């Protein structure tokens, strides 16, 4: 008994009071517990429990390896930076100096361009690491400390994030004045004629990947019907893709052919578009935006060298482990569906090195006359776009960024690794298929401030606007939608039959019929959707995902590649010849020019214009740069000129696609 009440008789309260009958109510509470009448035996299935816990878990843990392919063909300048001590104001003061590396001293080691030290390095001596600074290979800036995936200076060069597509947006892919954008279809940029078996067909090239296949149905928008009575019925009919590819059967992802007389149809760039059609439903086209689920403070993961991990190209493979658990509970993608994809995202860090190093300080010194928003940065802000066709009307062409011909075009600009939201890929979505297809992946582009604004720093040089590109988003398939579309569920039939008007009742019906929230309502109360396959389940067509479940979390191993590539690797090389005149009576500028050519990374050779001009005095030619101060020697200097697809300034290093054998031939025909 847990409560006691004392009730006093009335005659104890007052001498006038008497006792009367009183009634006290009391309650009797009892608890009970069902007791089995006999032995109850229940089996607990360990596997079922495992499946149950796995289904209920929305926690993901990511770990894995990244195999990088990184090099520095786009270096600031072929200089060796060092610190020297000079007498200033009566005492030794440290000064930064840069020594130009002669062309003959420029080497490549595993794709990195740099030099082998041929003199004692003061920095190394000060470090006192008991090793010789001689014969050490040093890449030009940006070097290992700014580009490698693993960086020993303690300031990471890249930031890893986990992102997911959370909304979509529209962009104007090709410039036009009539408001046509990506939502109106894939833009056409070129028309061509294909002749097959004596019959002419019309072909079109698209600005980006069109996502079409042979015999796909398509709608054409914004085309001109040249037939006398507009018999093509372009706006009313759906047409079939006759063939993919151009005249040489190449470029199948960006060209398609339809069975029209080429004379009957014309297009307008920026206005004419094409859409894929499935069961009379045209596809939607849009850009997905990605939102970060992890922080920007480098605390969410550890990165370290993979054991014995070196790629074929000598890059160290990095391992990483996300300490932070990624919880996707309640998150939906841009279509309102539970997440089926996450993205392992790598973004370049623009503050990627110790600012007190001599290399950092040197470049900041070089940039001190640039505007305030530039001079203290090493890297430009990140710009993003897509690998589109080379056409000045096309926006978001990431390879064209910096080309003066594209000066008025658009890109995604001002991107920083600390951003929470990033512009992503271009996708196609068709309501009949209920699937998204990625057409173009976004690329990030970054260049050094020094290269980008070289002309402002040194008026004798032009800007070097070719930067580095990389793909930031790597797909992680955490769930899969079924390969089969669930049969259409028509609640409207029931609503009409029983004359249901209460929305609550209709909602209950949705629950009863197990219609998911993300189902597409193709008409009022008629739904279709794809089931999201449970983790570990495989449907009859092989769809589904399977990965370990442990400690209440899903473990996903990622084995990704990271390719830092050039923006526009030049594939064409020509030889150019410069004439210089050396000697006492020559223009002094020529001596300077000659020295400059010898330092130029594209220098190939020099030759005497006329060998009989050379006068060998006693002791030979000791100083060719001014021809020993005597009259006069004409020299032909041969340099290479590397030409890319875009006008991005002088290129110092050829692309891997160039035929280098050309540079070794000495043929008058090669000399421009």
């Amino acid at each position, binding site marked *: 008994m847990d409560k006691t009440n004392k009730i006093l*008789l009335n*005659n104890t309260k007052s001498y006038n009071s008497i*006792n009367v009958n009183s009634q006290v109510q009391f309650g*009797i509470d009892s608890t009970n*517990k*069902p*007791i*089995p*009448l006999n032995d*109850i035996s*229940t089996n*607990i299935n360990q596997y079922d*429990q495992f499946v149950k*816990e796995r289904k209920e878990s929305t926690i993901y*843990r990511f770990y894995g390896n990244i195999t990088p392919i990184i090099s520095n063909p786009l270096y600031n300048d072929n200089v060796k930076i060092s610190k020297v001590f000079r007498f200033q104001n009566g005492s030794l003061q440290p000064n930064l100096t840069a020594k130009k590396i002669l062309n003959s001293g420029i080497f490549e080691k595993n794709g990195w361009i740099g030099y082998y030290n041929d003199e004692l390095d003061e920095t190394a001596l000060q470090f006192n*690491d*008991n*090793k010789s600074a001689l014969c050490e290979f040093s890449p030009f800036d940006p070097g290992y400390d700014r580009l490698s995936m*693993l*960086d*020993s*200076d*303690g300031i990471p060069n890249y930031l890893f994030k986990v992102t997911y597509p959370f909304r979509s947006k529209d962009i104007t892919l090709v410039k036009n004045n009539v408001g046509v954008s990506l939502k109106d279809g894939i833009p056409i940029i070129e028309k061509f004629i294909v002749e097959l078996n004596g019959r002419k067909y019309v072909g079109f090239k698209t600005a980006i990947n069109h996502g079409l296949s042979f015999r796909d149905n398509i709608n054409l928008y914004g085309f001109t019907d040249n037939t006398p009575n507009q018999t093509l019925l372009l706006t009313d009919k759906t047409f079939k893709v006759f063939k993919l590819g151009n005249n040489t059967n190449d470029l199948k992802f960006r060209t398609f052919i339809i069975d029209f007389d080429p004379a009957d149809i014309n297009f307008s760039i920026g206005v004419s578009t094409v859409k894929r059609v499935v069961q009379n439903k045209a596809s939607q086209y849009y850009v997905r935006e990605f939102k970060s689920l992890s*922080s920007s*403070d480098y*605390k*969410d993961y*550890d*990165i*370290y*060298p993979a054991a014995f991990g070196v790629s074929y190209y000598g890059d160290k493979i990095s391992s990483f*482990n996300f*300490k932070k658990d990624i919880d996707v509970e309640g998150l939906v993608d841009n279509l309102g569906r539970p997440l089926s994809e996450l993205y392992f995202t790598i973004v370049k860090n623009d503050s990627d090195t110790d600012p007190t190093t001599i290399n950092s300080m040197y470049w900041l010194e070089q940039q001190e006359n640039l505007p305030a928003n530039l001079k203290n940065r090493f890297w430009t802000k990140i710009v993003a776009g897509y690998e589109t066709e080379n056409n000045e009307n096309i926006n978001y062409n990431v390879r064209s960024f910096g080309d003066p011909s594209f000066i008025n075009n658009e890109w995604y600009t001002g991107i920083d690794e600390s951003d929470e939201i990033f512009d992503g890929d271009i996708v196609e979505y068709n309501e009949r298929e209920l699937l998204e297809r990625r057409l173009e992946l976004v690329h990030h582009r970054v260049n050094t401030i020094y290269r980008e604004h070289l002309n402002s720093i040194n008026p004798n040089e032009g800007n070097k606007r070719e930067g580095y590109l990389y793909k930031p988003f790597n797909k992680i398939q955490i769930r899969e939608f079924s390969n089969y579309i669930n049969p259409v569920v028509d609640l409207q039939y029931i609503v009409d039959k029983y004359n249901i008007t209460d929305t609550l009742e209709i909602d209950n019906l949705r629950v009863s019929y197990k219609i998911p929230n993300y189902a597409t309502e193709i008409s009022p109360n008629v739904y279709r959707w794809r089931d999201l396959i449970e983790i570990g389940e495989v449907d009859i067509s092989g769809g589904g995902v399977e990965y370990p479940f*442990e*400690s*209440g*979390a899903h473990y996903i191993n990622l084995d990704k590649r990271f390719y830092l590539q050039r923006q526009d690797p030049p594939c064409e090389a020509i030889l150019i010849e410069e004439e210089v005149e050396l000697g006492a009576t020559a223009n002094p500028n020529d001596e300077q020019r000659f020295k400059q050519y010898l330092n130029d990374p594209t220098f190939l050779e020099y030759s005497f214009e006329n060998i009989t001009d050379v006068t060998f005095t006693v002791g030979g030619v000791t100083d060719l740069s001014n021809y020993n101060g005597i009259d006069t020697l004409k020299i032909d200097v041969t340099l290479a000129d590397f030409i890319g697809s875009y006008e991005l300034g002088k290129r110092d290093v050829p692309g891997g696609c160039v035929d280098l054998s050309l540079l070794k031939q000495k043929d008058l025909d090669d000399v421009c």
Partner: protein
Amino acid sequence: MFVDKRKILIGNIGSGTTIDISLGSNFFPVDNSELIEDKFVKDEIKKSINPIVDYKKIIFKPADNNWDIIDSFKINLNFYTPESISTGSPTHRGIGAESGVYSDLGYIFDDIFCRTNRFINSFMRLSLFDTPYSGKNELLTFVDIYTQVGKDQEDDYGFPKPIDVSPISFVLGDPVLKPNEVHEGFHIYWFQDLVDNSPNQEYEMYATLQFNNTSNGKISELAPSKYINPNNITITNLEGSDGIFYLKVILKNDDGIYKYKFTPLTLNSPAQRTHHPQ
């Protein structure tokens, strides 16, 4: 229904009289199978299922006394010299941070110069326990750190030093920041949730050290200390948080950065890292 009737005369009832009423009940089980199936069995099943235990381990990086992460650290070993043992008055070599030398352990110059098996297979084992009491503690993890021929053991020209000046030292460095140093033993790998759920997000372990000498098969128990005065060791307590055999290690979640540090002993600090009579 059984009713126990009693007659009570009114004259027997005085003012304030109370009557005890006994309530008895017999247990008649009724059909509660539905309740049993719906609740009882489910509750019992739930009770029988083990809770999910998080086995996720992560990296803990070494830090200094101020919890600032360090990129390398050195472990010096110091032993009683054979000469002093033979005289019956064991003493250490050197003072302060100076370590012992490999000749104290019976190695010769050729062992280091040629990296003989008896040298390179000798190692120091750092074991981590949950408590500093050998009778009841549990080994959590251990790491073997093999002998090194690094900068300490080489002269300015890169040649091994003479054996009587070749220090018994182990330099451990961060695999990213110090790629040329030995990394085994630099990090501690431990369960993230244990640290996250510890008071102040700090979790304690106790380290012991052994040196396994392959040249003579001896295993030496060492007295580890973060401080550097080997001659100040007083063998009062071997065990416990003040004992000289255990070095407290604190693992910490410092605002999302996971670190560990060795902490000084209290009674015997400062006491030097290692020593044991051969």
